[in-house]
């Protein structure tokens, strides 16, 4: 039932990237300018060496040599200082750009439509938040600046060679075809290979993680050898991926390296001929030869960062993809006139033409407590989501105070009805942080009262720092039932008049669950409660019981009425309560 979140297409990615660059164009211009100046300073050395060779050849004085060396010293110092400023500005800029990217992403994730969050699950989003943001960090912080710097350096070096001796510099181009063809071949294949590597290692990491987490299971079922085989199988896949990328590099490296040295040899031969023909001086040829040799380094860096940029682009597409999710509701501005929640003739399908609810009606009396029971897969949870306004029904209406739930603003909806599932989450932060999210302006007193209402007082008072105790991953550990109490305390603070509890207490020790349900009952007094529960005691305590089977409401009434009715509920109750045995599978 999980839907994947979208991934942005090429044109969208380019549009977003261009917009980002436009926003930073001034800083970008400064970064490029400084790097260009640093590159120019780096070109002085070979030029001076050419002059020196020329001077020595012609006969010269120590004073002249010292003067040239003085210029060389000045150029080294200038290059040092310029490099410092250029790098610094580039690092600072990329930190800014990257910070903005991740903050934008977080903002968009936090605005994802309710129905998408419920259906897509969080696994995909967590991997975008961690793995893709990490990949992009490398791209934004290193790959893009390095690529730009290398490109500028290459360009300026070629320009310098042309300025020194246009005719000699012609030799630059001989390496070009091999570099272009080789790089193109490589770049078409490389990202896939590197993504394969990454995925293979991620799988291996996952296998090790679940092996360690499930150490007890592994031991109990004697699965140790099998886990070892699984780890080795993951490594074998990683090895195949490594072999693939190594093959790609085995083709690329000699191709480009030979393409780097070929122009140097050609420059010598071509330059030698030009000198003998009087078209160039020996100094010029020396300078150009050194420039051509010096080109290898930035060209090499350019190529090696380009594949990182491609990998980064796929991560960027996954981050941008989140913005492409259409909103699932548009508030009409209507306000509910009363608190009565009603579902009439609702049908719902996750997959087209396969309804899981077949025309279900349910009227909730304000303040009543209704338990929904039924076998798994009967559509109880789907009904719960419709009643909480998360999905619109395919046909029929779910409305509160005569307004459809999906026509309400999200803020309004939350004051009307809330859904609590068994999947709870305690955020890393203090207990107060964890509670206050439900109502930002709550006082510490409100928070304590909410915890007390859910019977959390005994353990809460034993916490080392009270409300300021840090909980969540890595913090003070909370048991599943304590986590559930935190979740329920949030509801007390959020204070909606209707609550949908979808097996909210199911993962708890049965004994604790009942305790919790009872204490909660007093808190929920006055609220309308829909409890989708599998413990019959919950049904027993409810005002009414609704039995959902096969997407239909088959029985509805008080506990006593249903027991008398002798339907499937009665049969279960008998068995649970120790009456006659049940049959009918």
């Amino acid at each position, binding site marked *: 039932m999980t839907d994947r979140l979208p991934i942005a297409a090429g044109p969208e990615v380019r549009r977003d990237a261009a917009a980002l660059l436009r926003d930073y164009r001034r800083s970008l211009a400064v970064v490029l300018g400084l790097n260009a100046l640093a590159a120019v300073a780096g070109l002085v050395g070979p030029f001076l060496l050419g002059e020196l*060779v020329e001077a*020595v050849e012609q006969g010269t004085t120590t004073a002249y040599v010292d003067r040239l060396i003085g210029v060389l010293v000045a150029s080294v110092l200038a290059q040092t200082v310029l490099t410092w400023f250029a790098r610094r500005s580039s690092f600072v800029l990329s930190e800014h750009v990257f910070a903005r990217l991740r903050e934008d992403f977080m903002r968009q994730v936090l605005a994802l439509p309710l129905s998408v969050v419920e259906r897509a699950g969080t696994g995909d989003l967590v991997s975008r938040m961690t793995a893709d943001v990490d990949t992009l960090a490398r791209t934004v912080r290193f790959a893009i600046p390095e690529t730009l710097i290398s490109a500028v350096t290459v360009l300026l070096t070629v320009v310098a060679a042309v300025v020194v001796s246009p005719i000699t510099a012609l030799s630059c181009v001989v390496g070009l075809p091999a570099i272009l063809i080789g790089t193109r071949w490589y770049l078409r294949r490389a990202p896939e290979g590197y993504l394969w590597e990454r995925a293979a290692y991620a799988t291996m990491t*996952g296998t090790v993680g679940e092996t360690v987490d*499930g150490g007890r299971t592994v031991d109990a079922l004697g699965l140790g050898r099998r886990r070892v085989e699984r780890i080795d199988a993951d490594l074998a896949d990683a090895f195949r991926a490594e072999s693939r990328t190594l093959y790609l590099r085995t083709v690329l490296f000699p191709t480009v390296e030979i393409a780097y040295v070929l122009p140097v040899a050609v420059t010598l031969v071509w330059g030698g*001929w030009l000198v003998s023909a009087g078209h160039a001086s020996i100094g010029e040829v020396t300078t150009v030869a050194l420039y051509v040799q010096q080109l290898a380094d930035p060209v090499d860096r350019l190529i090696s960062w380009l594949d990182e940029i491609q990998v980064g682009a796929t991560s960027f597409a996954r981050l941008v993809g989140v913005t492409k999710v259409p909103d699932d509701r548009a508030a009409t501005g209507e306000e509910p006139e009363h608190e009565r929640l009603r579902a009439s003739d609702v049908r719902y399908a996750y997959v087209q033409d396969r309804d899981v609810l077949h025309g279900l009606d349910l009227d909730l009396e304000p303040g009543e407590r209704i338990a929904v029971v039924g076998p798994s897969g009967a559509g109880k949870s789907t009904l719960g989501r419709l009643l909480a306004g998360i999905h619109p029904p395919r046909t029929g209406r779910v409305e509160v105070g005569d307004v459809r739930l999906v026509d309400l603003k999200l803020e309004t909806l939350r004051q009307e009805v809330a859904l609590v599932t068994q999947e709870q989450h305690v955020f890393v932060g203090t207990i107060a942080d964890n509670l206050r999210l439900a109502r930002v302006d709550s006082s510490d007193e409100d928070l304590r009262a909410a915890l007390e209402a859910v019977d959390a007082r005994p353990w809460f008072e034993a916490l080392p720092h009270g409300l300021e105790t840090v909980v969540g991953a890595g913090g003070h550990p909370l048991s599943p039932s304590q986590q559930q109490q935190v979740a329920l305390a949030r509801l007390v603070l959020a204070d909606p008049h209707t609550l949908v509890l979808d097996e909210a207490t199911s993962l708890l020790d049965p004994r604790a669950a009942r305790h919790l349900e009872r204490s909660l009952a007093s808190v929920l007094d006055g609220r309308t409660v829909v409890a989708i529960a599998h413990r019959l005691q919950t049904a027993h305590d409810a005002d009414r019981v609704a039995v959902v089977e096969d997407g239909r409401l088959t029985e509805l009434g008080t506990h006593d009425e249903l027991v008398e009715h002798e339907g499937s509920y009665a049969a279960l109750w008998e068995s649970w309560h120790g009456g006659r045995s049940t049959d009918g599978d």
Partner: protein
Amino acid sequence: MKQLPFADPGKPDTRSPTRFLLWVGRLQLGTLLLGMTFGIIWMLAQALLPWVLGRAVDEGIATGDSRALLAWAAALFGLGVVQAVAGTLRHRVAVSNWLQAGFRMIQVVAHHAALTGPAIRTRLTTGEVVATVSNDALRAGGAFDITARLAGAIASYFVVAAILVSTSTLLGLVVLLGVPVLVGSLSLVIRPLQERQREQREQVGRLTAVGADTVAGLRVLRGIGGERVFLDRYRRRSEEVRRAGVRVALPQSTLDSAQVLLPGIFIVIVTWLGARLAIQGRISPGELVAFYGYAAFLVIPLRVAAEAVDKVTRALVGAQRMLEILRIDPLVGDPRTPAAEPQQGAVLEDAQSGLVVDPGLLTCVVTPSADEGARIADRLGRFADDGRVTLGGVPVAALAVGTMRCRVVVSETDPLLFAGPLREELDPWGRASDEQLLEAIAVANAEDVLDSLPEGLDGHMEERGRSFSGGQRQRLVLARALLADAEILVLVEPTSAVDAHTEARIARRLHEARRGRTTVVMTGSPLVLDQADRVVFIADGRVAATGTHRELLRSSPAYRFAVTREDAA
């Protein structure tokens, strides 16, 4: 390239990080030497390029001798080809070295973790183990990768120094002493940089954790509210990371400019001295060009040396972390001489509580708290050595752990499902037929899970089975426990997360499926208890009553209260 992973990664030397790394190195000595050979050829080819360039200038261009020029240009190109080919081979062997070392370390550590059971988690978090396996091992492999280039760096350093000494003692000395001084001064800049990078990495790690945490709880945030607060919190962290990044920018740009300045000074000195020699006529213009080339080239071995120091340091740190895992022993070990195995159908007995598990029956155990039930199950399965549990009269502590795991299978409160095809994960032992698999799935009433996978039994289950709901996972776990086909099966709260309808169905089918075999269920659910052949009620740590569910409901008010929560009346 050597095929990986290793069929048997061997038994590591865990006495110290250095010995551990040496153990790894010894096992791939051949590849290491091969890498060094290519590394030396590759780097010498580069070191000799300036020399050839100088000769080409002198004998070709300056003299106008086109034949000599062609010959030297061809030599230059040939050297380039040697460099390219040796460089590529060097890269291949270096990658092989890196992978061999990295994979061997991953294998020994991960295998050890897999075979040590729950002991690891008592000492380290899952995150720490995963980080060690996925980062530290491969990073430590870097120390083996660098050997090829380091060998080349050292060889070329001496060759260049020798060439320069033969021309001018002064120049030679400048190079011989200058390079180590430069390496040393670079490390002065590198250390504060690494310090701040470490700080930044930690900040980034915390930010990622905050991001993952926020996203993982997105349902809560979108359902109840608090998006604004969490966005602000993330932003604040993000700004801190940005500032940490800017702090890194300072030493990083200093390092980058030092890498311009230090070799630059070196080039200036060599060129200046060379030019003076050239004026005096002691060296030719071509040799001056060559000197300039050597000085520029020496930057490479210099950087390699700095990198090698860094990689070896990291490898030692990583090895230390790997050893922490390798030194953890399983919680329970085999006795020195295991006792003879009791016969099939032996009685399992827990002297501490007085619980006696009769063979061939479905026994349900009711305890005042779920934790206590779990503790009894732990004792029965020998997950702790402190119990006084006997199987057929033999203390289980006297039996081999493997024997116990075969005969008594305990499915604890919250067992894990692993990623993989459903078929393999439900029957990791590979002994069940499709029919048996489907039967076990039917007993656990997990048909809906099977239906939700288009490929059925061949469908893929995600890590920890997290694409399924809690109830679905619990039913799959039950199916797997049934397929373990144990003589004695102990289940702890196997239906706590399923609805009453399903629970009743599972209980009935479980009774049927395990007919004639020994099954113990720790539960408080009347729907399950109703199906038991025998119910044992434990109060205050001891057996308080025994009988069927209905008998106990009638005869024991305490039992009635415990399971139905109705006041004893």
